[in-house]
């Protein structure tokens, strides 16, 4: 049992199929507040699909999604974000022509409900800009925040993915392979940045590098063929012979 608190995010019987292809079957998840969950599984296991379902970018065929105690199954994606459920993308989904400061300022402005102000200059919203800048500094993007996003080095673009998500002040953050495409020596930086996030934040991340998973996750969910195959602490997952067979291979993890 997870304790007396309501889980930050949970699903009940979540299912999705495209024609005869089942991409999510009867997913029952429960993320306690402040938890750091890793979602692992072979390619095509439905990891990104699950994030799409939970954030409302795909509609499930069956099941429910709860944010805290609220049923959010029918809400639009932006509505879920406003309630505190935010995601990042595996493939950079940024604003190429905006610089990092503008992009994060936009996200903060949306959260503060001032994005429809069309008469005052952006620069008059001091607190909004400073909040955006603080987020960028925290992710060590402060010195490149005036550069157009498309000109930023790839690793910094990955950090900007996270910065945009943080600007929405999430309660639950779903990170879809935050270090995808980043050389292994730099991926540590990105996860350090993730790990330094506030302890109240509930985190679920998809990641293929098992070193990273075992280092940062407090709990691991293994997804195979659209269903949850196993779930448990890193030690339990590492010891699970089935998981080792289908996913970790026979290679022993140190």
């Amino acid at each position, binding site marked *: 049992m997870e304790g007396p608190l309501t889980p930050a995010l949970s699903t009940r019987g979540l299912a999705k199929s495209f024609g005869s292809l089942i991409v999510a079957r009867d997913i029952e998840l429960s993320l306690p507040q402040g938890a750091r969950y890793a979602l692992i599984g072979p390619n095509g296991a439905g990891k990104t699909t699950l994030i799409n379902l939970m*954030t*409302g*970018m795909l509609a499930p065929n069956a099941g429910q999604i709860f944010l805290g105690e609220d049923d959010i199954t029918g809400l*639009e*994606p*932006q509505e879920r*974000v*406003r309630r505190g459920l*935010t*995601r990042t*993308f595996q493939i950079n*989904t*940024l*604003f*190429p*022509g*905006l610089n990092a*400061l*503008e*992009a994060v*300022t*936009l*996200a903060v*402005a*949306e*959260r503060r409900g*001032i*994005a*429809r*102000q*069309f*008469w*005052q*200059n*952006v*620069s008059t*919203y*001091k607190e*909004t*800009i*400073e909040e*955006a*800048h603080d987020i960028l500094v925290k992710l060590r993007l402060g010195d490149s*925040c*005036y550069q157009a996003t498309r000109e930023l080095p790839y690793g910094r673009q990955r950090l900007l993915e996270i910065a*945009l*998500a943080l*600007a*929405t002040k999430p309660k639950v953050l779903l990170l879809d392979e935050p270090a995808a495409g980043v050389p292994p020596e730099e991926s540590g930086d990105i996860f350090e940045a993730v790990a330094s996030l506030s302890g109240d934040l509930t985190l679920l991340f998809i990641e293929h590098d098992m070193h990273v998973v075992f280092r940062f996750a407090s709990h691991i969910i293994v997804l195979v063929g659209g269903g949850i195959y196993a779930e448990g602490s890193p030690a339990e997952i590492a010891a699970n012979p089935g998981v080792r067979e289908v996913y970790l291979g026979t290679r022993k993890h140190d």
Partner: protein
Amino acid sequence: MALTETARTPQLYLQHLSRWRPIEIAFWLATLLPYWLTPDYLSLASQIAITALFALSLDLILGYAGIVSLGHAAFFGIGAYTAGLLSKYGWGEPLTGLAAAAFTAAIVGYATSFIIARFRHLALIMLTMGFGLLLGELANSAGWLTGGVDGLQGIHTWNLLGYFHFDLYGYTAYGYSLAVLFVVFLGARRLIHSPFGLALRGIRENRTRMPAIGAASRTHIQMIYTISAALAGIAGALLSETTQTVSLDSLSFERSAELLVMLVLGGAGRLYGGLVGAAIFMVARDQFSGIEPQYWYFWIGVLLVVVVIFMPNGVLGGLAKIYARWRGR
């Protein structure tokens, strides 16, 4: 831009982006030149100012929010007929005519925005075009109201501010059109430097990301579409007030398509692109149709092809690139 970035606060940096540049002031001073340099061409100058305003309205949705429309003349026409009909039936006061035109166009714009905001890409182009064609045919068949192919007759515009008579040479017409263009431009400039302007650029840059940062892009699009419709309506009203006639071609597909050409020529997403594009297009048409009355579109075609190949971001985009290269040396 030679920013000493470390010395700036983020706030000052954003403020800096929206400052008035000397070239802008020079541009607006230059718009007064026709009074001295080409007083015989004031009616053309006035047409250019009106078309520039119309192009500015399209730039707000296309250049800033990425919504391609091939039916924007619908709102221009609605504005033109609103002001024209008001005048024909006894109310020829120009400024309230503009307000009425803006209001009517905004209502139609808002009503259609519910559909517009749901579509993208090709579907959107077809929808706006279909809507434009539909309205054009409605105006054509409602001859009792619009005068059909003969155009709306019997418009009489009162003196501007009760004093300036709309003369044959276009002195008042140009001053009036230019003043309205300038005022609308000031508003549009404020808008694009506001948080809402930033949100529009967000939609243009990546509409998929917008919901993921909690943005209701559809509502944003509805809002800018309505504003853009109102401004196009003002442009239409200016035309009917200054020429004291409205014809069906104010609603035509050609007008929508030409508008898109002007914006592409000038450079979309730069506020001045529509203004420069309208000036280039109208002057080119005036000159080419003088040389070759039948085939002048040929030369417009050549101009378009050349600009798109060599300056993909329009004449202003091309100039900005050359300037940047020159500065970088």
